[in-house]
């Protein structure tokens, strides 16, 4: 079976076969990153991640005439850790046609929506890898999907249509995994495999419309009909003792849902204001008290601003709201960053603080730019519980503080 990495060899062969020098006005770019990412998990006193990797991307452009531009992009991520032999991933394989204001992209791709940082409520076109909930880097967590993606790009007005014939399921921690969020009372139960989406039957479709007003306000509205990206577990064939299930099967629940959204930005001076809002209709979720699966409207919003100065000091503040018909959570997050020693080093600090729940997450980061190509990052995830507030969405991991180290070399 052809694995992801084999596509790269195929591509290299393609590169050698085609006579690129004859592609008039053609542009060919090959680049990527080679790195090592590792993390040390306190509490268990062990390395939870030790992964050398390589991202490689090749890009061709302008095979065609002056009116129509054609582009081919291929990129792949190779995990070089022998403990994960089947983890090589083709992350992009697209063919793009650009004609005047229209762009049509066909193939395996990632489609990013939204304007806010840190938490990405509108970024749900692609399924996500939630096996490690604290790795929020979309480069690592978005799951590429085969899609037909048309965009109209006008001067003020823009629009987009997306069709995904066969979506992918999000990935979640396995039973018993460090970051498994299954409630303790159900953790001992067996879990069924996730049902694979079916071609066309589970297809997804949607799009957005955007407008840039003359006074600088940029607004986009979204609609997407899609498979839910969150994990809801339905308890089947349960037997109880003292109201506690002692046997049964947890079955992941997936259904097609409607989602609508809005994003907006406005810049004035050194301030940029941002808003992301999404409403998922009848989304399957587990009730936090009874654990039963309910179908609820889920509204998620992030509103904030960031401020930057000429010496590259940046400060951002955001308010987060996540509500269901019957319960809600809200948080405040803040991110601050500034350079040191010219552009040699960057320090940043992120905090995510629950207002009506226990969540409290700190993430200090140091990044060193050792050369034009070589960088090193050290950061920590420190999770605390704010007693006696109600349980949040991440406070359950308060025993799992970690330190990360990443080395990267760009080529």
């Amino acid at each position, binding site marked *: 079976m052809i694995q992801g990495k084999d596509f790269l*060899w195929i591509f290299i062969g393609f590169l050698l076969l085609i006579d690129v020098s004859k592609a008039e006005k053609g*542009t060919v770019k090959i680049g990527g990153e080679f790195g090592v990412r590792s993390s040390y998990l306190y509490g268990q006193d062990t390395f939870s991640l030790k992964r050398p990797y390589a991202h490689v991307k090749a890009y061709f452009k302008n095979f065609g005439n002056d009116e129509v531009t054609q582009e081919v992009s291929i990129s792949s991520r190779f995990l070089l850790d022998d403990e994960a032999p089947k983890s090589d991933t083709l992350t992009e394989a697209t063919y793009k046609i650009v004609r005047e204001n229209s762009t049509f992209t066909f193939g395996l791709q990632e489609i990013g929506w939204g304007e806010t940082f840190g938490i990405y409520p509108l970024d749900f076109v692609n399924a996500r890898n939630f096996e490690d909930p604290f790795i929020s880097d979309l480069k690592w967590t978005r799951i590429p999907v085969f899609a037909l993606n048309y965009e109209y790009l006008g001067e003020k007005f823009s629009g987009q249509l997306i069709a995904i014939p066969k979506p992918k399921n999000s990935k979640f921690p396995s039973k018993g995994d460090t970051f498994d969020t299954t409630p303790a009372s159900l953790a001992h139960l067996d879990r069924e495999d996730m049902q694979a989406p079916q071609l066309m039957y589970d297809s997804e479709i949607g799009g957005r419309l955007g407008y840039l007003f003359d006074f600088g306000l940029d607004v986009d509205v979204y609609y997407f009909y899609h498979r839910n990206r969150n994990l809801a577990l339905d308890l089947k064939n349960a037997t109880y003792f003292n109201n506690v299930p002692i046997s049964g099967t947890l079955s992941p629940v997936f259904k097609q849902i409607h989602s609508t959204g809005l994003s907006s930005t406005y810049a004035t001076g050194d301030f940029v204001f941002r808003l992301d809002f999404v409403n998922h209709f009848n989304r399957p979720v587990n009730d936090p008290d009874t654990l039963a699966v309910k179908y609820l409207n889920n509204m998620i919003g992030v509103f904030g601003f960031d401020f930057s100065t000429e010496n590259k000091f940046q400060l951002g503040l955001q308010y987060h709201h996540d509500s269901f018909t019957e319960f809600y959570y809200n948080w405040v997050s803040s991110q601050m960053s500034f350079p040191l020693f010219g552009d040699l080093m960057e320090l940043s600090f992120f905090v995510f603080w629950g207002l009506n729940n226990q969540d409290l997450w700190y993430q200090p980061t140091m990044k060193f730019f050792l050369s034009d190509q070589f*960088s090193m990052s050290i950061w920590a995830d420190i999770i605390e519980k704010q007693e006696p507030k109600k349980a949040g969405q991440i406070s359950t991991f308060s025993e799992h503080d970690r330190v990360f180290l990443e080395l990267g070399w760009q*080529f």
Partner: protein
Amino acid sequence: MLKLIKTFLFLGLLTFLSGPLLSQDEGSETSTGSVKEEKTAEAPTEDVSEKAPEGEVEGETSVASKDVGTPPVVSEDGNEVAEGRMPASVEGPSAEDILKRADEVRNPSESFFMKVKVTNKGEEEKPSQFNVSIKGNNRTLIKTLLPKRDRGRNLLMLDENMWVFIPNLKRSVRVGLSQKLTGQAANGDISRMRWSGDYTAKLLKETKKSWLLHLQAKKKGLTYEQLKVLISKKGFRPRQAHLMSVSGKLLKKIYYQGYKKLAGRLRPSQMNIVDAINDNKKSLIEIEEMEARDFQTALFNKRNLAE
């Protein structure tokens, strides 16, 4: 271990292959039509290495300290010439006309491409490099070539709005226009190359050699609210600019140097930017290539920032 060695081998192969392939014309990727005029900088035909006359900015005696009215635009043979193409021999051009002529020195046409290198003092071994596509005064696309870690972080300016593409997010993010490109260079220093249209000009002082103009922003959200610009009468060449905030506080000084032939005429190939408070903080913007070029309007869209 074998896997690691294999990875190094094919990465080396890719790097080897990318050498001749990348030698193709990268600049043409943004072109829609034929490339006009010369592309690369040519050796100057005259010595234009004279330094900016710093003393003239503050110590000149003025010949006229009020706006000069716009005279009829006539050539030496008495015939009228087109507006904006005044012969240098006509005395008393208005402040706005001087500004337009200075813009013509800095910009080859309404729509052009340039390759820019930015070097910060103390980091000369780590320059930044950008491909800049400009259409009019309100559309600029900046593609980052160096440093490699920032490759893909492309910037788009539309009117007073700016976005930067974040490769990890695979989407563009709104940023402020005054944000730094690198070092002392703000995004607007290379993305907005025309003063006329953005600023109202007033003639402050005039000497035998130069004009000193005061520029006041006409729009909100521009990189600098006020400027004082020294323009040499010889060829309407910008020499020096003092960049100021709303309150008139001096923020930066820019020296226009290295006049040489770019896109068919003598233009400043260097902008030396110096912090007003700490003159050890300097950045040098060098225009390595410049050519007039036509672009599709659709190119300047935030969805197109991804490579």
